[in-house]
């Protein structure tokens, strides 16, 4: 299931896009799995169809899903993170203690920029 909170500071389409992207990368939505139609998801979440359409369009542009008139909207194979990434993320989450999600992500961003500033390769890229 995905949730939608109108009081959130995050804009509606980004809430939908973000949750779907997380579920795909976590492997909870596997490759080839069919997603609900724009009309169904919009009606169930009580949002405008255009909101879901925009979220789907962005996910399609990111290469996470593909839309077809005949086959519907499906998750593209091969976008789930590797198991070691999942394990590392779980270790980190259990280590952060009382931090909330934004604070925990802030720490990740800081470490990310620090690594980049020291000229180390970004995770997922290989030096020739």
């Amino acid at each position, binding site marked *: *299931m995905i949730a*939608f909170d*109108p009081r959130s500071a995050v804009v509606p389409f980004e809430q939908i896009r973000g949750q779907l992207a997380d579920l795909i990368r976590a492997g909870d939505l596997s490759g080839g799995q069919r997603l*609900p139609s724009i009309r169904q998801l919009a009606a169930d*979440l009580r949002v405008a169809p255009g909101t879901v359409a925009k979220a789907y369009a962005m996910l399609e542009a990111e290469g996470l899903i593909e839309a077809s008139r005949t086959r519907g909207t499906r998750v593209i194979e091969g976008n789930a993170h590797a198991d070691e990434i999942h394990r590392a993320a779980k270790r980190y989450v259990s280590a952060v203690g009382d931090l909330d999600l934004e604070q925990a992500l802030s720490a990740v961003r800081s470490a990310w920029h620090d690594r980049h500033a020291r000229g180390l390769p970004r995770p997922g890229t290989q030096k020739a």
Partner: protein
Amino acid sequence: MFTIAVGGYVLCVAVLVAVAWGAAHRRRPRTPAPAPVVASLLEAARRRAVSAVTLSILVIVALFAAGYFLDSMVGLPVALAPALGGAAGLLLYAATPPSVLRVDPGSARAASLTPRTPLSFVPGWGAALLATVAVAQVVFLLFTGATSSADESGRYRAIAFRTADSASSSSPYAGWFYGVPLMGATVILVAAVLLALWRVSSTPALPQRELSELDAGWRRTTNRIIVSVGIAALLLQFGSVAIPSGLAIGNAAFAGVPPHWQTIGRVFAAGGLAMMAGSIAGLTLAALWAFALPDLARRRRTANVVRGDETAPEGVSR
């Protein structure tokens, strides 16, 4: 005779519904009262389902009565009554706007990521039985059409046997005269079933995570009712042409006719009677499920909640 048959059919359904409803009421376990908004939603779903079943029965009886008075149509309205009656009830269901839980503009909601199709919550046995009866009926109608003969008015609604020295014919026999309109009516009935199922699948889901089982529960129960009305109508239609066709074969087949015809006639008549009984059972179950829809929708869910009154999920209203 005709009035007794129709009256007996309706009486059977009514008595069975009353007896089963009474027995179910006595044995019903105490379940937690649903939140008022949820209860009113389930009550609206019950009204729609009961209306569909009631209209189906009324149209069937009305067309049976019309056929009784319209002699010139030689029973065609009677033959078409079950499918058209079932289709009328299901089209009423599809045309009635569903009640939807409204959400406060500022409250959070959740949605499933499983696509819903008209067949999503249809019981496997129901879909298989509906398809089997529909196909069997088409095969029966094609067989009787191919073996039919014209009556004195040129209508293909008789069965005739001829040998070198004698001939015999009997009607009414399904033949092309009844078979072609019945196949058309079957298509209309199946389309009405699919349309009603589509209406269920296109109704927005209950917007809270904790209501997801209840949402699945009312969809499952409603689809069971829709499919049962479809099956009951098809069985009644099939049975009401199989019995006279079987009797017509028995009447027309004389000593010189190959004996397998007598067997075919008996199978048609006995099968027709069994289908009439199945139709009564199907319509009775559909009516019972419609009356008990709120309880059936909550059945699986109540096993998982602590006894006591439920509270309304935050931010929902009808």
